[in-house]
């Protein structure tokens, strides 16, 4: 079942040139993110250090004194020109950091934010959705009650409330985002489980003495997985964008983590002063990733579940 879904999806994406383009761009971003995961050893007095990644080695540039426009030879700080140590494709920010490098550093964060929360949410949703749908009765009642309560708190407030009492950090942010977004998927899985449960082969498997856990995870789970995949791909864009917004209102990840949100955040101060490259760098990266993913996710969704064709 799953493999046929997959082959349909591949066929569809092959035919759709936009989806193909989207997929290519996403792959490029994935490559950047992977480069930012691979550690590269560095030797110094204190021994071997593993702090830098391949991306750092490839793209990190010397820190300048302050702002410089893209590809400039000199920068300006307090009305005094200063020479640059190297050329910067997208210029430097107020700390003299290379904008391109910062933007590339944001890719890994974006992927973490885009995927980890929905995986967390998926785990919750699968667990509760399957249990509720399969066993029914009071288990179903309790789980339904919990998600009824959670879904009646607007997500953004739930998020704010959780982030206020938790420590700041990228992973904490992921957990908060995950915990606040499992409800919708859980509802879908519960419904699908109810449907699948009644199918004949499940009855047959039960008659053959299959245990509950076997039924749940070998027979029912594969039949609801396409919903999970659709949900994860569809949530990606929204999550990446919400990172920017949350950083903006002061609930983002800890510093040192690359963040497009933080780069955009300074824009309203910089833009009227003619410093557009920092904003543009982050915005374009964010836009490209989200657009590419949207194009690709649309095709994937259409392929995996024609019933769900919707905005």
């Amino acid at each position: 079942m799953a493999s046929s879904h997959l082959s349909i999806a591949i066929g569809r994406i092959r035919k759709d040139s936009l989806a193909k383009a989207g997929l290519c761009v996403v792959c490029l971003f994935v490559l950047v993110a992977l480069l930012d995961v691979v550690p590269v050893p560095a030797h110094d007095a204190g021994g071997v250090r593993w702090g830098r990644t391949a991306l750092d080695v490839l793209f990190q540039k010397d820190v300048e004194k302050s702002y410089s426009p893209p590809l400039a030879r000199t920068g300006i700080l307090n009305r005094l020109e200063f020479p640059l140590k190297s050329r910067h494709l997208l210029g430097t920010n107020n700390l003299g950091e290379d904008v391109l490098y910062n933007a590339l550093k944001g890719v890994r964060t974006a992927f973490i934010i885009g995927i980890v929360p929905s995986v967390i949410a998926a785990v919750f949703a699968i667990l509760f959705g399957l249990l509720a749908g399969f066993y029914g009765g009071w288990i179903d009642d309790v789980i339904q009650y919990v998600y009824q309560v959670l879904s009646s708190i607007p997500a953004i407030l739930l998020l704010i409330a959780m982030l206020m009492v938790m420590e700041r950090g990228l992973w904490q942010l992921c957990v908060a985002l995950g915990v606040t977004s499992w409800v919708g998927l859980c509802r879908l899985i519960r419904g699908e489980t109810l449907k699948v449960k009644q199918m004949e082969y499940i009855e047959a498997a039960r008659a053959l003495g299959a245990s509950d856990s076997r039924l749940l995870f070998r027979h029912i789970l594969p039949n609801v997985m396409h919903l999970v995949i659709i949900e994860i791909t569809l949530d990606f864009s929204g999550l990446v964008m919400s990172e920017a917004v949350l950083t903006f209102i002061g609930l983002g990840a800890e510093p040192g983590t690359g963040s497009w949100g933080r780069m955009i955040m300074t824009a309203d101060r910089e833009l009227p002063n003619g410093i557009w490259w920092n904003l543009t760098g982050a915005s374009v990266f964010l836009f490209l990733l989200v657009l590419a993913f949207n194009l690709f996710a649309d095709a994937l969704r259409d392929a995996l579940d024609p019933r769900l064709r919707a905005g």
Partner: protein
Amino acid sequence: MAYYIVRRLLLAVPTVLGVCLFTFLLFNVFASPEAIARKQLGKNPTPVQVKTWISSHGMDKPMFFNFERGRDNAVHPFDSRFWNHMKELVLFQFPESDYLHEKVSSLLKEKIVPSLTITVPAFLLSILITLPLALFIAYYRGTYLDRMALFVCVILMSIVILNYIIFGQYFLGIVLKYFPVYGYEFGLGAWRFVLLPVILAVASGLGGGLRFYRTVMLNEVRADYVRTAMAKGVSEEMILFKHVLKNAMIPILTVTVLSIPFLITGSLLLEMYFGIPGMGNMMLNAISNHDYPVIRTLVYVYSLLYIAGSILTDISYTLVDPRITFK
């Protein structure tokens, strides 16, 4: 109908209690009273001051049941943090803001109007603009115009609302000087300040909305009754605007009501950028000042609004779909 509404309201009671319970757990398990007190007491609080602050806010009481003898030498088992919290919210006796030394309810009263002056027009206007546009696109379905429009929608969807706001404020406000860059006025004068935020809110939601409505419309356009109407000689425009639109209202209603909470996010940023003294602004201030009572109350109030909204949606279904009746 009255019976139906009463039943729905009764069914909402456990949910509301659940929300109360949730906020209690969140804000009492994680936050330490000492830290809150010090944060709120300013420059050089003495330990005695901290202690009195904590006890005056009832934070030194036991979590669930109070078996100690109180001042009147009697035991009040329900004078505990949990029961006081529940009482506060359920009976609408909202606490005082830690930071602003004011009842949250009076803050809410003052803040809700500016927020509504953005969200309501933005909400209505976006429906009013997106729906006809979606119908137009549905009219051109299958042509290159449709495909182009769809692509533009995806592009619009892929731009973060932050960018809309930053560019909108910069070009329309600062460069072209069409709108006040910052500020608000209570009363009828508000519209001048609300205009740009509303335009930006509508613009930022346009792509996603349009695409969704188009999908809904196209699903309907394929329906049999459309063919019947065509065979009767009804014009295509009429079919779209009358037959299809009314049928499409159900999914549209569901999604628009579900999207109301997202208006909060939008208005949060808009209020912050344009200096509109609404709930979003209050929320941001509460975040930066660690004003837990405000956030706690906001969570509760918004949940109530949300529950009320979903009941209203269900009722409004009956207006557009005769197949749905109150049971």
